[in-house]
């Protein structure tokens, strides 16, 4: 049987507070003024994107004991900016990253249910966990969560919020002025959740929202994270944007769904992807090279080096070879508030790989960092990029992509103007929105409120 042609899902990630975002570009605008968010959201909606995506960080990053100053710093509150963007868009999904460690289920549930009402069914939640005492210094809870407890707490947090979302069936509000009946159920919103991390009960005060629950995203890549996603998420924000990596990840995660009684189309896999467009593939490659150099300045290269070496290398020459001294093994103390440093599981081995690569290819420190921190996902003419994206999706390396432009707020414009029409011509991307909610765009079913239905 011939495999059906898949429809591509596209989303836009507001440029973040890392070196991918090139603030030194003359076209770079404000990262905090509302007008930048409006431009970005309106562009994504003009391109008929499924949703826009906001990341979150709850403590400014530090390196060497000082606030990190080389990247964009400063961003808005996730819920508040998404609620405002709901006023300037009609169909675009609004996905926000919200931490499950430094929040409480009742409050997060009422904020997401409110956002879903105020956007008429366009809210999504990227559930992340954090467990470091560094971030905890900004919060009542403070503290530290052992790594083996973080997924458990996140799972319980999500279960607790689902209990809250499901505490209203959606038909309780009668509001019949003649009879005087406002609620059909005197116990509407009643809930109780007890577990190792939460012991809460009472009445939830936001009636069921248009989507029932926000669409749930998960971003972790560990075995735990994949299992969590297979059990409970509607979509994964993944890192695996290439064909081989993507196919392996896709097969692995989709293969886990049956054990949870779910079908493959109930979990979408959406890798993050950067892109550079040019009139020709050669021009795009040239631009991409310039962008990489702007993303990895000599100063930024040294900071990356320090993150692996876990020591002060401020005197090192970025245009010289890699340091001969070895990384300091153990807890990473040089960089704080940055998830990526935790991926350096074996710094000595990684340093040796980098040295071998630098020697083999005759690379300076900065050139090496440019190479190992990855080139852009899609580089080429609009038709090349459209073809590549379609190929990856049809080959089951993903269900679509979350595009991360490198310039705020106009970095998405060229993609929407030049690539989207080509995908539409091929019949693999919507010419217009067919539904109104984010679940509609993603092809996800409306959840049934199991708990309240049983009351």
């Amino acid at each position, binding site marked *: 049987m011939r495999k059906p042609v898949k429809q591509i899902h596209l989303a836009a990630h507001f440029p973040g507070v890392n070196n991918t975002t090139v*603030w*030194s570009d003359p076209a770079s605008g404000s990262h*905090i*003024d*509302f007008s930048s968010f*409006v431009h970005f959201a309106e562009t994504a909606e003009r391109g008929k994107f499924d949703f826009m995506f906001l990341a979150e960080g*709850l403590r*400014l990053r530090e390196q060497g004991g*000082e*606030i990190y*100053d*080389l990247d*964009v*710093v400063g*961003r*808005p*509150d996730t*819920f*508040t*900016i998404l*609620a*405002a963007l*709901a*006023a300037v868009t009609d169909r675009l999904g609004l996905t926000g990253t919200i931490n499950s460690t*430094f*929040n*409480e289920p*009742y*409050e997060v549930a*009422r*904020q997401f*249910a*409110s*956002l879903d009402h*105020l*956007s*008429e069914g366009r809210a999504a939640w990227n559930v992340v966990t954090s467990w470091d005492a560094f971030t905890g*210094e*900004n*919060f*009542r809870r403070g503290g530290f969560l052992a790594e083996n407890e973080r997924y458990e707490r996140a799972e319980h947090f999500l279960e607790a919020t689902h209990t809250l979302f499901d505490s209203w069936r959606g038909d309780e*509000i009668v*509001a019949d*002025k003649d009879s*005087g*009946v*406002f*609620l*059909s159920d*005197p*116990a509407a919103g009643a809930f109780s959740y007890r577990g190792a991390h939460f*012991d*809460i*009960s*009472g*009445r939830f*005060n*936001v*009636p069921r929202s248009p989507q029932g629950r926000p669409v749930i995203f998960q971003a972790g890549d560990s075995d735990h994270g994949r299992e969590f996603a297979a059990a409970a998420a509607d979509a994964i924000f993944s890192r695996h944007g290439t064909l081989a990596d993507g196919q392996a990840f896709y097969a692995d995660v989709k293969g886990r769904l049956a054990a949870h009684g779910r079908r493959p189309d109930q979990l979408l896999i959406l890798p993050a992807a950067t892109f550079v467009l040019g009139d020709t593939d050669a021009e795009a490659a040239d631009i991409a090279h310039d962008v990489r150099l702007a993303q990895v300045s000599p*100063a930024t290269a040294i900071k990356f080096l320090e993150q692996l070496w876990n020591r002060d290398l401020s005197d090192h020459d970025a245009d010289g070879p890699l340091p001969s001294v070895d990384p300091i093994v153990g807890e990473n103390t040089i960089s704080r508030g940055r998830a990526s440093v935790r991926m350096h599981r074996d710094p000595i081995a990684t340093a040796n790989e980098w040295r071998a690569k630098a020697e083999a290819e005759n690379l300076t420190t900065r050139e090496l960092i440019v190479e190992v921190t990855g080139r852009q996902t899609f580089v080429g003419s609009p038709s090349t990029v459209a073809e590549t994206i379609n190929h990856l999706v049809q080959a089951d390396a993903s269900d679509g992509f979350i595009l991360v432009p490198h310039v705020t707020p106009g970095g998405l414009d060229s993609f929407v103007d030049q690539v989207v029409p080509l995908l539409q011509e091929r019949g693999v991307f919507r010419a217009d929105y067919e539904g109104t909610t984010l679940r509609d765009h993603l092809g996800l079913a409306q959840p049934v409120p199991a708990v309240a239905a049983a009351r």
Partner: protein
Amino acid sequence: MATAPERLHLAVALDGTGWHPASWREPDARPADLLTPRYWTDLVSEAERGLLDFVTIEDGLTLQFDNPLRADERTDRVRGRLDAVLIASRVAPRTSHIGLIPTAITTHTEPFHLSKAIATLDYVSSGRAGVRVQVSGSRDAAAHFGRRTVPDEPKEFADELFTEAADYVEVIRRLWDSWEDDAEIRDVSTGRFIDRTKLHYIDFEGSKFSVKGPSITPRPPQGQPIVAALGHGEAAYRLIASSADVGFVTPHGAAETTAIVDVISAHRAGDAAPAKVFADLVVFLDDTVAGATARRERLDAILGREYISDAEVFVGTPQGLADVLQEWHAAGAAGFRLRPATLPHDLLQITDGLVPELQRRGAFHDAYHAATLRGALDLPRPANRYSNV
């Protein structure tokens, strides 16, 4: 001079279909729309058409109950609401002049989150944000969070909650100042996006929380968005005096207005500008006194008892209300927060009746004259507490 001193300020307090529990039964009420963005946009737009200085939006961490401290299972009242900060943010891009002051509960929430939320509301509204802080002594709210038990001694607990609220406001204010206005430098020659010497740890340590800072959100357009609080007694008056720009109070006459304003002023630190004291009134308005009285009686008949409130209840015409407001204004109230008994009826009576009447008397502005909520309240943009430290 942008505002003559005799001019009073006007705000409206939005809550559901209005403050009377039977308001949702009125012919013009929209109880089925309470959870829609259109409902709130319509109300705030109407208030803006009437040139009101700001709206407040009520909120809570429990369902609405007849007695806020005791859960009930009534089915004949409005139940269910949306997060007030998010309502304000949803409305902000659809309005352009009116101030937006949502309620936030300080008892179970994180000051770090609220600080950036209100800073963001200030960005999306171009400088029209405020927040009304409220404590919660509800056992039900505490059970929703499961981290705190409500003790049996209500007086001590109330003192604890107000002390915590003062700490909370201190934290959100320090966080708003934790970035100096010119911290973002984008210096291409050195590769620095910010001048980190202009970002500040707030290092707050209190009995209920400690917060390190700085905020993740740059200093908002107003520098310090407006902080408001409602008070009925000493502990709340002290909070208003120590922490708020605007205090909502509930006097029942001109003399009491003066007395409360004096108490709050006496608690204010010597060098601080006095808090703007707004008197709250519940209003049943109509073109005739008889009409207003009949409306109230009709609503009370549905309620099954006389409606009572912590605030003075005014029943009458916009002209009669204007008399009261001018008298209380002369007695020391900077302005008034009117709680419409029903919506949209009493809001329309305010915008179509009260406002033109006060304008005819030269007691209310004819146009918005300031770009920000602080400006509307004649408050300057404050210097940053961390500058030149």
